[in-house]
């Protein structure tokens, strides 16, 4: 027996799905979805669960994260219930729900809050940055008002809290997913097999590629490198590459000044990949080229926008460093670059970015069952 919650659909509405309850359960979305398997019944059943307020069903569903938002369902929906964007809204809801502080709920539900928070945060991060150079004259001026230790400790605490939120969020999701419909022992893949599947999926986006294979799909006539899966691939691997390059820098405590150094080459290539993907993704959303890009939530703009600005300023600095140009403009650019990058990391658990940990976990459960 499951108990319905009649106020739930109002809640989902606040995460950005306008008309999903016009759904009359015809099942066209399920029929057209290239990722629906066996008796998965998504996206239809997801909509049903949302309408009836069966929260647990939603939070414990890996299906939610198996969708790559190709928008075929939205195209076919006879009731304009927009299942594609509904799924995106549900993912926002799930991110907000897994994350323990409640901050994500405020961010996703209220755009003004999200914007004000970002601005305040960038100000704080700016302050924090000055703590790295306490002998700067601006820093000295600041520390007259605020002791250096307070600023530094506060910054560290925020970073630690973010990290904890992320871990708790992941644990919450794991708790929900592992509590439900686990395959029988003999139907389970071994850990090694799961990892192999995961590596394959992240390397090739095999499942995502299925999305664009519909015969009448808009993407069918376009080259592979501009298709959504490829865009996503470049953003993801670009970002991971940059992360690796930055980490290498950090480990060797010595920023790679020479352009041919391996970490520099890695950073440049990864940065180009990410910029390519983020630019196209932003362009697609801006031009609303397909249904799936037609409705963007602030969370989408912020996530992509931050990546793009971080990438652009990064390249600016690379050039500045190459020409050894030490000007105020470059200093400001450096400040922006660092603040934006730190915000990305800081808001990781509280933004769309969090899908980067939740989707792999869902896929982990998905590949756990022999298919």
């Amino acid at each position: 027996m499951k108990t319905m919650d009649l106020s739930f659909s109002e809640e989902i509405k606040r995460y950005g799905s306008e008309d999903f309850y016009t759904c009359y359960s015809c099942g066209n979305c399920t029929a057209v979805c290239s990722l629906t398997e066996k008796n998965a019944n998504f996206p239809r059943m997801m909509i049903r669960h949302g309408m009836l307020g069966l929260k647990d069903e939603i939070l414990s569903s890996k299906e939610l994260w198996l969708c790559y938002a190709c928008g075929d369902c939205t195209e076919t929906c006879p009731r304009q219930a927009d299942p594609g964007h509904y799924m995106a809204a549900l993912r926002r809801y799930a991110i907000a729900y897994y994350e323990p502080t409640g901050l994500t709920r405020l961010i996703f539900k209220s755009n003004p809050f999200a914007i004000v928070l970002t601005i305040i945060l960038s100000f704080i991060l700016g302050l924090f940055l000055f703590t790295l150079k306490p002998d700067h004259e601006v820093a000295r001026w600041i520390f007259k008002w605020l002791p250096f230790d307070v600023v530094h400790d506060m910054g560290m605490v925020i970073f630690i809290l973010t990290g904890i939120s992320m871990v708790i969020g992941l644990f919450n999701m794991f708790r929900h997913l592992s509590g439900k419909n686990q395959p029988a022992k003999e139907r389970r893949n071994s850990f090694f097999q799961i990892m192999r599947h995961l590596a394959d999926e992240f390397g090739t986006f095999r499942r995502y590629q299925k999305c664009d294979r519909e015969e009448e799909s808009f993407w069918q006539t376009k080259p592979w490198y501009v298709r959504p899966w490829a865009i996503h691939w470049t953003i993801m691997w670009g970002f991971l590459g940059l992360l690796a390059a930055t980490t290498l820098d950090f480990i060797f405590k010595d920023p790679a000044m020479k352009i041919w150094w391996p970490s520099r080459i890695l950073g440049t290539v990864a940065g180009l990949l990410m910029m390519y993907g983020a630019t196209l993704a932003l362009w697609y959303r801006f031009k609303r080229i397909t249904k799936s890009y037609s409705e963007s939530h602030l969370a989408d703009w912020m996530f992509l926008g931050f990546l793009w600005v971080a990438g652009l300023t990064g390249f600016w600095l690379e050039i500045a460093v190459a020409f050894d140009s030490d000007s105020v403009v470059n200093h400001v650019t450096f400040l922006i670059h660092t603040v934006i990058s730190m915000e990305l990391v800081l808001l990781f658990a509280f933004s769309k970015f969090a899908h980067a940990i939740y989707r792999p976990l869902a896929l982990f459960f998905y590949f756990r069952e022999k298919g």
Partner: protein
Amino acid sequence: MEEKQEKKRIGVYICHCGGNISDYVDVEQLRDIVSNEKNVVISKNVMFACADSNQKEMIKDIQEEQLDGIVVASCSPKLHLHTFRNVAERAGLNPYNYVQVNVREQCSWAHSDHPDQASYKAAGLIRAGIKRVSHSEALENIQIKAHKSVVIIGAGVSGMRASIDLARMGNQVFLIEKEANAGGQIAGKGKLFPTEQTGKMVVDTLMDQIRRLPNITLFTEARVAKVTGSIGNFKVDIVIQKAQDETISLQAGSILVTTGYETYTPKEGEFGFQTSPRVITLDVFDRMIRECEGKLVYDKKQVSSVAFIYCVGMRQSKGDNKYCSRTCCTSTIHSSLVMHEKFPRIRALHLYRDIRTYGKQEMLYEKSSKAGDIYLMFQEQHPPHVESSGDQMKITVKDHLTGKQELDVKVDLVVLVTGMVPRTDSNQVAELLKIPVGSDKFYNEIHPKLRPVETVINGVFLGGSCQGPKNISESVQSSLSAAAKINAIIRKETIELEPIIARIDAEKCTWCGKCQEVCEYDAIFQVETNGKLVAAVNEAVCKGCGICTPVCPYDAIDLIQYTNQEIEGMIDGFAQDVELKAREREEGAAHEEGGVMMKDFPQLWRSIMDVLDEGPKTIPQIALKLSQPAELITWHMMTMNKYFIVEPAGIDENDEYYRYQLKNKA
């Protein structure tokens, strides 16, 4: 009954029906046989008997040869009986001296595998027809005087609307209402879809018009006590309830029954009705919406969620009410929307079996789901369970749209959607008027499609929901259609009826009463003639069903057009020996070999075959090649297909036309 003169000059026409008959039935030989029959002066084969040219020729024959009876052996009388009766009438022959013999549906089509036997059967039927026409009698339609007045039983919206139209067409109308006020069920309704007028507004508009029409008399608190007479001349006794009951007799040419429906009352305990608090019916809920202001309150508690349970007492696979009441889905959704408008933020749950918001009403359904109403589908064998839980009601339902999962939910109010059932007193009215009642206990029309507002009782019509569940528009449509029918009957103040009824031979009759017992229409009554009690037939009521004729021990009853003489003559005619020469039909032999010999083909067939020699073609392509109209080619292609000369060869590239090819080519 004296022996009537046998007819001396009979004309017989045997139709080819363009091959439909002549392909199988040997019409030429039949004509030869018929021409030798006694009293037959003309016998002809015709390509199409119904063609204008032939009709003219028949008129000429009748007049020149002074024919006194004609037989056409062609298609079913359902198709052309009246065509040839008209031919007879135009030629000055009584139309009842015409007999149609069906040799198409009953011979050539039914026995196309056995053409010789089809011919044999046709010979018998035609001879029977000749015998029948030789005993037929000239008849005149029965003329009945009719009062230009109508009694309408039930002053609901259907009765009121019909009374206005009938009065405007110049008839006296007596509108009889049982209750103290006219308006019926609608008077108590709130806003109605799609005009959003209230029921009271609708009824007031009608009442206003009724008051202005002097030829409408409205009787309230009146009941029909007795109905006698028949079409054109009904006598309706009504009793008006006053301190002292008053009986009034009304005379009417016709009666319109618009007694309406009742709303189903749930049984005690049905979905918690009467046994749990907070379970009400839709009618009560509608009244609540109207009466509450500011917030919706039931039993001192503000309502913030409502669950509607549909099909209560309807579509029962085991109970009496097997039918769908068809108006309640729309009513419920409309009520829900009216509720949202007046009291925003109330959650509505709809527990339904199927949503039947047909036609424009579908828009309401869409509007409601856009308003966030939640629809859950259950099946009859798993009805929702309702129980009270604190100051709320808890519903458990197996939702088919959620993988048949069992779900529970708490709501503040449960509304049972009950449909339309026949009135509890509908049987009394049915008995008074002798109108038949269907298995659903609503009144029955003669034919749901072709005669939807007439009853088997001549002159008694149905309108509105006494006939079955209908919404207001449908009710008014049916009562207005009945009004138009009634006016067409009584406006001339005489009514013509077909003369095919029972006839009693007063000399033979000794009044045993058996015929009266079996008559379903009460058409037989007792009269005294020449000091003797005998049976007589009410011409206006008799339907000519013939049930009285076999029960009469003295053979005193005959059904006109089906007299003993006619039927016996037909049997004789049919039983007569027929000697048919086996038809010389090369093509008959060829049928089995799957082809027809070339010499029998029309020139066009050969041209078509030449075209098809090039390969499969569609009919439009063939028509284009031969510069012939496509209809003609279609006609011939179908025949060629029937004779296995051509066969379909799949559909063309555009999915438009079938291609055909030569059969032996394949």
